[in-house]
């Protein structure tokens, strides 16, 4: 059993768990978090793909892609959370 096998399957599992949450979480915050789990799952696949049996050095390209993906995901998360805050405030104003 090599790390790429173990963590590759971990990535699949995390992606699947995130998918369940993204499809059926009611709470808005939880859905954002579920999507973030999906992104970690996808990142696992790329990092695992870059891994080489030691002493081989890993392929740097997927690492760069994942770093890009992380920054993109935090941007999307920030916008989603801003929408959640705004929506909550608008709902509160309507109810008041």
């Amino acid at each position: 059993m090599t790390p790429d096998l173990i963590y590759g399957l971990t990535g699949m599992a995390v992606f699947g768990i995130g998918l369940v949450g993204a499809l059926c979480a009611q709470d808005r915050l939880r859905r954002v978090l579920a999507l973030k789990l999906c992104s970690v799952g996808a990142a696992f696949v790329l990092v695992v793909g870059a891994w080489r049996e030691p002493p081989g050095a890993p392929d740097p390209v997927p690492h760069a892609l994942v770093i890009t993906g992380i920054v993109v995901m935090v941007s999307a998360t920030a916008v989603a959370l801003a929408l959640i805050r705004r929506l909550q405030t608008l709902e509160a104003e309507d109810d008041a």
Partner: protein
Amino acid sequence: MTLDLDMMMMAIFLPLFGAIAAFILPRAAALVGLVTLALTTGAVIALGLEVRQSGAVVLPLGGWGAPLGIDLRADGLSVAMLALTSAVGFLVSIAALDALKGADQARERQYFWPLWLLLLTGINGVYLSTDIFNLYVMIEVIALAAVGLTVLSATRAAVQAGLEYMYASILGALLFLMGVGFIYLQIGRLDFTGLMGAEPTAALIAAVALMFVGLALKTALFPLHLWLPAAHANATAPASALLSGLVVKAALYIVLRLAQYMPFPSETLLTLVGLMGAGAVIWGGIQALRAERLKLLVAWSTVAQIGLIFVAFARAGEVGLTESWKAAALLILAHGIAKAAMFLAAGRIKDEIGHDVIRDLDRAPVRPTLAQFTFALAAISLIGLPPSLGFIGKWSLMEGALVAGYWHWVAVTMLGTLLSVAYFSRVLSAFLRFDRIRTPVAEHQGWALADAAPLTLALTAIGLGLMAAPILRFIEIGYPFGAAL
């Protein structure tokens, strides 16, 4: 370095610098926006001339060349999509000058331009990209800017719709990213050329499925369309026109492009795509028939029309795929122009009458006749009456399906056409009835600039039908398999 290579960079970098300028100079945002649009359109025209003269052009960014670096590539299809984006974008921008002129809209005005120019950067970037990871980054640029535009009006309904759109966008992008991961696992490359002729292994089939579902979510293909109607119906009119006319086309284009380089692994999958399209045509049509508000009806018609594009794509099965994408591309162009015109016209009607409840449109004391005329012209192209571009698109769809003996797709197209006649008639008949109101009706002619843009778009959608042959010849330039076939 030759001039054409510059033009690809310009098509992406001009809107980017424009967005930066519009953001740091909020007071001059509109001026910056219009100048940027004009310059970008110029770059696209120059690029088009170059492509027509010397075929597809490639720019290896950084001088590395794929697969290590990223290449930009423009062929007939890319330029056609860029031209659609510039033309629609320029006219919508002019319309936006008027739609956002209110004294209470200072902030909307201030944010519309940088977001729209970033959106343009992303869309142009998609049409010139040849790298699947780069496409992922580009669709995220598009997503964030598009969500920003969706919630421009900051009403509760718009923010709610924007949040649903955001969830769908993020999920779609992540599915696409997972597909990118699988492609890397299997072939160790990310450029289009590397995809050509790859063996359909389990990992590649998984990748195709993930990427297709992700893109279907982004382009709102039935049954993944749930986010679209509310988002497009609740945005302000220029934003709706951009979202419906241009944004969904980017994901559609990626589907077409991937299918060119990486033919679908099986006939079954293609049939499934056609069935999803058929579902969209029927369900979107029924919902448009039931919609109570004008903008919602137009939004549901987008769902139906996107379905039709996927039917066109599947019309002749796997063997016909080398031809089918052309019918799909024609329908994309036709829908982009006509739908932008229609949303702008609907926005004008709503502005003038004060509401957009279809049932009460004929009771209005004002008649925005020019906007109503524009709406009718756009409907002609969307229904697919001759000589519009929509007609040519539907015709080539049905012709291909008939040649291949796929009668079911012809039936779906006919049914979709009937439904679109029915739901647009609901609106058009309201425009034509004068007997519902006793008081004298004010003939509102509309402000010239505000109606000029949608009217030009609608006339273009109809007129381009006469130019279908040159357009078809143009989009075939540099087709990746052109030389081989």
